[in-house]
């Protein structure tokens, strides 16, 4: 920049030239947050069950910095599919892990964010681990609000280092690193609606297979699950929210996400939810979800000597299928003027049914992979 440009920029900061209000720094909320949630996940066919306890807290420091901490404990039990076998009359059956596995995963994450006038930057990190798995991650992000505060650009970047030492193979230490980048825009369209559109890019490198899963090769036997050592994922999520004053101030939320990865999988996710206020400060939220994906190009339910390459997997998450889900969420909030400013209770239940036949364009894989699962959450959030 030339001398004259530097001076002009400095001159433009003079109120007389750039006449208008003073833009103020700091963030909107200056309250402490304390949130506690219990959640339960359970699959059909006696498969996996998970109980999750989570505690999060947020504290403002000065009028620009906000610190946050998040503690999570999962306890996982039940069986999980490890193998598909073709039985005598050629039909594929799925075998679950025999012993009922019992694992406990603990995770800790901390974060700091700093609010400038219209820009907010954040840094964070965390660690999570089970007896056979350790993951450490770092993340950073920035958001810039402009155009009379109607438009917000967001950018986040995170990196994770995972290490897996499968039970019974203590000498083996497989590691992988994952990088994720998000760029997004949130735009207020008018008084009653807003739109958010985010794009994420994720790149994984290292040991990406599942040590507890295997593939059945007809006439040969079993082979370990063996996936490529890198994976690139791209996702584009668009969320639309619209306010209906005449329908007792309800709001419609509609999300659509397109997903593509270089393992050959394309995924579509559609979620619709209706947020209906009833009585004072009650919200009832029915919701519907549909998901579909096709299979990875190295997936087969079972293999034979001819088509077993060195990259192969029968993992039920890599096949083609669709999921239909319905759910209901209830929230009730209390506003007070004392030390505690707000208490909010939340309860929700979702039922999801996953079937190969729900996949767009149909799928004749058979129903050996089909199962259903439900989720329950209950939480209390406090602001003071």
């Amino acid at each position: 920049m030339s001398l004259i440009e530097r001076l002009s920029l400095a001159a433009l900061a003079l109120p007389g030239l750039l006449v208008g209000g003073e833009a103020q720094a700091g963030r909107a909320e200056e309250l402490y947050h304390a949130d506690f949630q219990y959640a339960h996940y359970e699959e059909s066919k006696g498969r996996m069950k998970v109980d999750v306890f989570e505690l999060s807290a947020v504290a403002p420091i000065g009028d620009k910095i906000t610190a946050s901490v998040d503690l999570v404990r999962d306890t996982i039990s039940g069986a999980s599919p490890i193998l598909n076998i073709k039985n005598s009359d050629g039909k594929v059956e799925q075998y679950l892990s025999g012993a009922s596995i019992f694992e406990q995963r603990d995770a800790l994450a901390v974060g700091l964010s700093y609010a400038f006038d219209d820009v907010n930057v954040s840094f964070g990190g965390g660690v999570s681990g089970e007896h056979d798995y350790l993951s450490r991650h770092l993340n950073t992000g920035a958001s810039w609000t402009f155009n009379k505060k109607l438009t917000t650009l967001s950018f986040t970047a995170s990196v994770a280092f995972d290490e897996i030492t499968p039970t019974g193979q203590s000498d083996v230490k497989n590691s992988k690193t994952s990088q994720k980048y998000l760029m997004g825009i949130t735009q207020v369209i008018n008084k009653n609606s807003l739109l958010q559109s985010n794009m994420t890019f994720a790149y994984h490198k290292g040991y990406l297979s599942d040590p507890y899963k295997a593939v059945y090769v007809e006439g040969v036997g079993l082979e370990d699950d063996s996936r490529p050592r890198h994976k690139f994922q791209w996702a584009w999520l668009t969320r639309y929210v619209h306010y209906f004053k005449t329908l007792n101030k309800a709001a419609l939320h509609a999300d659509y996400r397109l997903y593509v990865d270089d393992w050959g999988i394309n995924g579509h996710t559609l979620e619709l939810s209706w947020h209906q206020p009833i009585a004072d400060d009650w919200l009832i939220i029915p919701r519907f979800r549909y998901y579909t994906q096709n299979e990875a190009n190295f997936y087969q339910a079972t293999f034979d000597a001819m088509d077993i390459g060195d990259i192969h997997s029968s993992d039920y998450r890599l096949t083609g299928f669709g999921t239909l889900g319905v759910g209901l969420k209830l929230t009730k909030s209390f506003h007070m003027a004392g030390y505690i400013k707000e208490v909010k209770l939340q309860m929700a239940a979702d039922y999801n049914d996953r079937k190969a036949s729900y996949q767009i364009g149909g799928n004749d894989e058979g129903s050996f992979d089909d199962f259903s699962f439900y989720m329950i959450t209950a939480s209390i959030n406090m602001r003071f």
Partner: protein
Amino acid sequence: MHHFYQTLAGTALALSMSMSASALELNSVAPDFSLPNIKTHTVSHLSEYRGKVIYLDFWASWCPPCRTSFPLLETLYKKQQAKGFAIVAINMDEESEAMERFLTLYPASFDVLRDPEGVWADTYGVEAMPSSFIIDKKGMIRHIHSGFSKADIVDIENKIVKLLAE
């Protein structure tokens, strides 16, 4: 990188220029207005407060910094009221119920007026929520302040005391 920086500076300039077009200016006369007063149920005019130092605040119940500001403004008002200090809080909620529920939680003894269509917020060029204008005894806008955080009350009181002494 250099080129990018310049275009960034360019856009920032353009944006800031366009943003400020409608705002009122420091040291200009505060335009008089008349709005319904929720306590007296009559119409109040800004000119009725002439001779006082006025903290004119545009607020709404749904804006978090307004919740932070009301208790602090209430104490400031009680403390300086006798010396000729007035607070005129212009509420812009679409529905008055939301405002009434707010005022039960954050009672205000200073005057609250209603401007649901934001007519005077437009004239005063309100750019952020909340926005406040400190007006001296001669009716001139001496300070413009947008947003509100706890630490601001000290600076606001200094300005009020200085103007009261004028």
